[in-house]
């Protein structure tokens, strides 16, 4: 039944986990509304024939539908629409909130091409390679105008807006190649801004990973090298001691209190933002002295740093030296001693 209706409505294959649910709601909404439309049209045809004019200038009796009848019609239609809305909103919220354990891929849209950067440092143009059966979180931004990342087979679409990191996600169900389109008009070659999602079975995916070794060996080691080279360690510590910048120990996934009273979860997007745009979120008690690393740090290096910070959540490094107490003047936070 599902396949028949899908083929009848010319829908692409249901290749992501939520595609099936969306399609079932689709069938329910389309059938109920088309039945309603056909009923209304047939009712009109019936009245047309049944009450056709027999003699010219014929007068008719004044008939007004009673209010209860009106209320019933309105009530039934409204309740049907509200059912659409409730199911639609629940599915929409699930489709728009990535699961926490999803694998991250950075998507950068530029006028008329897609660039994908993976967590382990590799990046590719217009082709997104993901394993089957694992949720993939796309952290997307645009370099120029609004684009829209649209994979019809996954029933997934999200605008890519310059100036913000929007996240969208999918979990591919079956290996295969699925087309990516740009859905938001973005200029001359809007219709040629195409890409492909290569979904590989776990075996193929691991051989694909081996086939393309990431730039450096162990990610956490790569992260520490980058942190040393780029001078991160001048302000941030790996052993929990407070210094000019917040320590990275226990940072990943914690709730960070910011200036102006906001608290933000320190997830991948927050860490990336803090590297690329440190002025955006100033942690309470710290001065905003950090320079921006946009254009300095390549995506793979940023990804390696995030992996390093994630690893420090459980295994902080032993303090090789005790750093001088730095009191950031005017900071509301008293420098409590190390636990």
């Amino acid at each position, binding site marked *: 039944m599902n396949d028949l209706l899908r083929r009848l409505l010319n829908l692409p294959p249901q290749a992501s986990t939520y595609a099936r649910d969306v399609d079932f709601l689709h069938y329910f909404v389309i059938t109920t509304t088309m039945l309603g439309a056909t009923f209304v049209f047939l009712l009109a045809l019936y009245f047309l024939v049944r009450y056709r004019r027999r003699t010219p200038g014929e007068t008719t009796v004044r008939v007004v539908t009673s209010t209860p009848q009106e209320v019933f019609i309105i009530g039934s239609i409204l309740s049907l629409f509200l059912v659409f809305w409730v199911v639609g909103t629940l599915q929409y919220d699930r489709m728009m909130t990535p699961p926490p354990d999803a694998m991250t891929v950075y998507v950068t849209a530029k006028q008329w091409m897609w660039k994908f950067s993976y967590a382990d440092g590799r990046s590719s143009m217009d082709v997104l390679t993901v394993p089957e059966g694992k949720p993939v979180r796309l952290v997307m931004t*645009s370099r*120029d105008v609004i684009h829209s990342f649209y994979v019809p087979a996954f029933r997934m679409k999200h605008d890519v807006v310059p*100036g913000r*990191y929007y996240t969208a996600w999918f979990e591919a169900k079956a290996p295969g190649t699925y087309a990516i389109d740009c859905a938001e008009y973005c200029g001359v070659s809007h219709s040629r801004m195409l890409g492909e999602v290569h979904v590989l079975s776990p075996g193929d995916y691991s051989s694909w990973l081996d086939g393309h070794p990431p730039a450096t060996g162990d990610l956490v080691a790569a992260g520490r090298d980058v942190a040393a080279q780029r001078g991160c360690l001048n302000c941030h510590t790996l052993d929990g001691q407070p210094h000019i910048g917040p320590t990275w120990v226990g940072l990943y996934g914690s709730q960070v209190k910011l200036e102006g009273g906001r608290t933000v979860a320190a997830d991948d997007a927050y860490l990336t933002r803090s590297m*690329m*745009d440190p002025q*955006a*979120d100033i942690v309470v008690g710290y001065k905003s002295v950090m320079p921006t690393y946009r*254009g300095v740090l390549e995506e793979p290096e940023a990804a390696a740093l995030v992996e390093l910070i994630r690893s420090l959540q459980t295994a902080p490094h032993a303090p090789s030296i005790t750093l001088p107490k730095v009191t950031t003047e005017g900071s509301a936070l008293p420098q409590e001693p190390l636990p």
Partner: protein
Amino acid sequence: MSEATQTRETSARGLALTLLALLVLAGFSLTMRFVHIGAASYFVGLGVAAIKAALVVVFFMEILVEKVTVRLAFAVCLSLFALLIALVLADVLTRSVPPLQNPPGSAQRYRG
């Protein structure tokens, strides 16, 4: 029946009093500029402005003298204004993705 005989218009004295009230309120909101009251300054500033606007609309524009359709029309315009602000701010405030101060790309074209 010329309009002059309608009694509910503002008298000359009423107009002068309204002006005085407006100037006093303006003075007050000016002083609030130099008093640091933090986030409350939004409500004080806009609240005083709303009071002054109401004074002008009621006493100078004499909206109460107008027929009910006029008042209805103006109320509808204000309610649409409020609807637009409410729903847009609801979106901006509840959006989980903050803006970037200087986002990648989209550098602006400097002229001069």
